[in-house]
């Protein structure tokens, strides 16, 4: 968040890529894209390309990590070296470790982990091309991949960010907006419950601006939720027809 005032991000009431303030980028979702993984999903979100593979529930090693009351949900968020302009050295950096942690906590809020004691559910998120908003795209895809794997969940997790550019609160920042804007606020919700499971923010927002940004991000999440359900309907008629996504309340 540099808040660099010299870079024009809004022109004639439109954003650089022609979007309205409350308009998401183009989004494409697909499930069952991998052979080996128990469940998988692919999400294209603007220029972001994200693939997720899920394994488990499977035995957790070493044994002393096992929890007899529930499964562990373990998440690895990884940026491919070629996914960004300046090659990223392979291996986890501090940013990836933090995103893996908050993503894992968000997913844990809906997965019925208590059904699979002593096991682990592994969620592997690969960012193949990155253009701002990768954690939201990754979480959205991870949620689809868990459903694709048939792992019981109370609901899907839907994720979207809001932010502020040139004093204007907008939804779903792309790269230039993220680089030169004044704030980024990624969010994820449990749509049925209407509650927030991921919320991070950095930049500058007044209390009122925060309320506006919150609403934009929330509404964005709900649009994502619709796309997620449609994707699961379309591609997995059989799974959804059997009532696949469990109702947790």
């Amino acid at each position: 968040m540099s808040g660099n005032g010299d870079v024009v991000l809004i022109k004639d009431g439109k954003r650089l890529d022609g979007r309205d303030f409350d308009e998401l980028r183009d989004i494409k979702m697909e499930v069952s894209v991998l052979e080996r993984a128990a469940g998988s999903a692919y999400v294209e979100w603007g220029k972001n390309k994200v693939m997720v593979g899920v394994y488990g529930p499977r035995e957790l090693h070493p044994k002393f990590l096992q929890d007899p009351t529930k499964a562990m949900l373990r998440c690895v968020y990884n940026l491919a070296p070629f996914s960004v302009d300046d090659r990223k050295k392979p291996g986890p950096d501090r940013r990836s470790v933090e995103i893996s942690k908050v993503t894992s906590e968000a997913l844990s809020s809906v997965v019925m982990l208590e059904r699979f004691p002593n096991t682990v559910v592994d969620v592997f998120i690969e960012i193949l091309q990155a253009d701002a908003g990768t954690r939201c795209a990754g979480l959205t895809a991870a949620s689809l991949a868990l459903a694709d794997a048939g792992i019981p969940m109370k609901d899907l997790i839907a994720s979207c960010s809001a932010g502020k550019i040139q004093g204007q609160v907008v939804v779903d920042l792309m790269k230039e907006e993220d680089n030169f804007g004044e704030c980024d606020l990624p969010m994820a919700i449990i749509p049925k419950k209407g509650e927030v499971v991921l919320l991070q923010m950095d930049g500058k927002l007044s209390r009122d601006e925060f309320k506006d940004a919150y609403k934009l991000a929330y509404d964005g999440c709900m649009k994502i939720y619709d796309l997620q359900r449609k994707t699961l309907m379309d591609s997995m008629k059989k799974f959804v027809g059997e009532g696949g996504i469990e109702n947790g309340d």
Partner: protein
Amino acid sequence: MEIEGYLKKDYITNLVKQDKREDARKFDEHRKILVDNDYVKDKAPGSCFVQLGKTKVLAGISIAVGEPFSDRPNDGVMSTSTELRPMASPRFESGPPNDESIEIARVIDRGIREAGAIDTKKLLIEDNLVWIVFIDIHVLDHDGNLIDAGGIAAMSALLNTRLPKYEDGKIIYGEYSGKLPINCVPIPCTTAKIGKNLLVDPSLNEEYAMDARLTVATTDIINAMQKGGTGSFNEEEIMACVDAAFEQGNKIRKMLSTD
């Protein structure tokens, strides 16, 4: 969570249902904060030992010179690390930073960085040479809410940090050329959700019992937020956390001073 955690969780959950906290605090209060600036003054240009209740952290500032980042050639550099020293908790282990310590460091860092607390534009020494400010947060005794304790310690240490003398391409240790330029004082405030209740500044036992937490770092605006834990917040709860952060931020800011 170890056995202790399970037991404490039940105990705290029941207490909170009766609108009580184990130390008789109100839900919207921080524990007693003791601030001891310049704790390692003979070596570090800035430092602060903070006790937040029984939690003890020591923030130390180190200053070096180096190259700026290529996309900000005139700005100084800051870097924040947190070490959960194994003396602080039976659960902490020696070794490289894990996801817990990285999250704490990054949340504290975001509050300070995004508020522009350090005036990095004044840290240019000469062409392609800037001051680098290292903030190291050493956790010595863990009784909960390390983000607030660490964030307060870091900010108080920065407020009292001196810039070393730099002559002939070398830092003269122990001699100073002025104070580190500070623009504003962001303060993080963490609220825990236990059942339907919101409790500011959770103790360790309250952390065992919490479903989720929300940290909000404020100056006169919001500069950073971080939700943690596997539970969820509704909008009303989030706004309550934000309001508590502004209020507690103002109180705590008044406690910090420069010497």
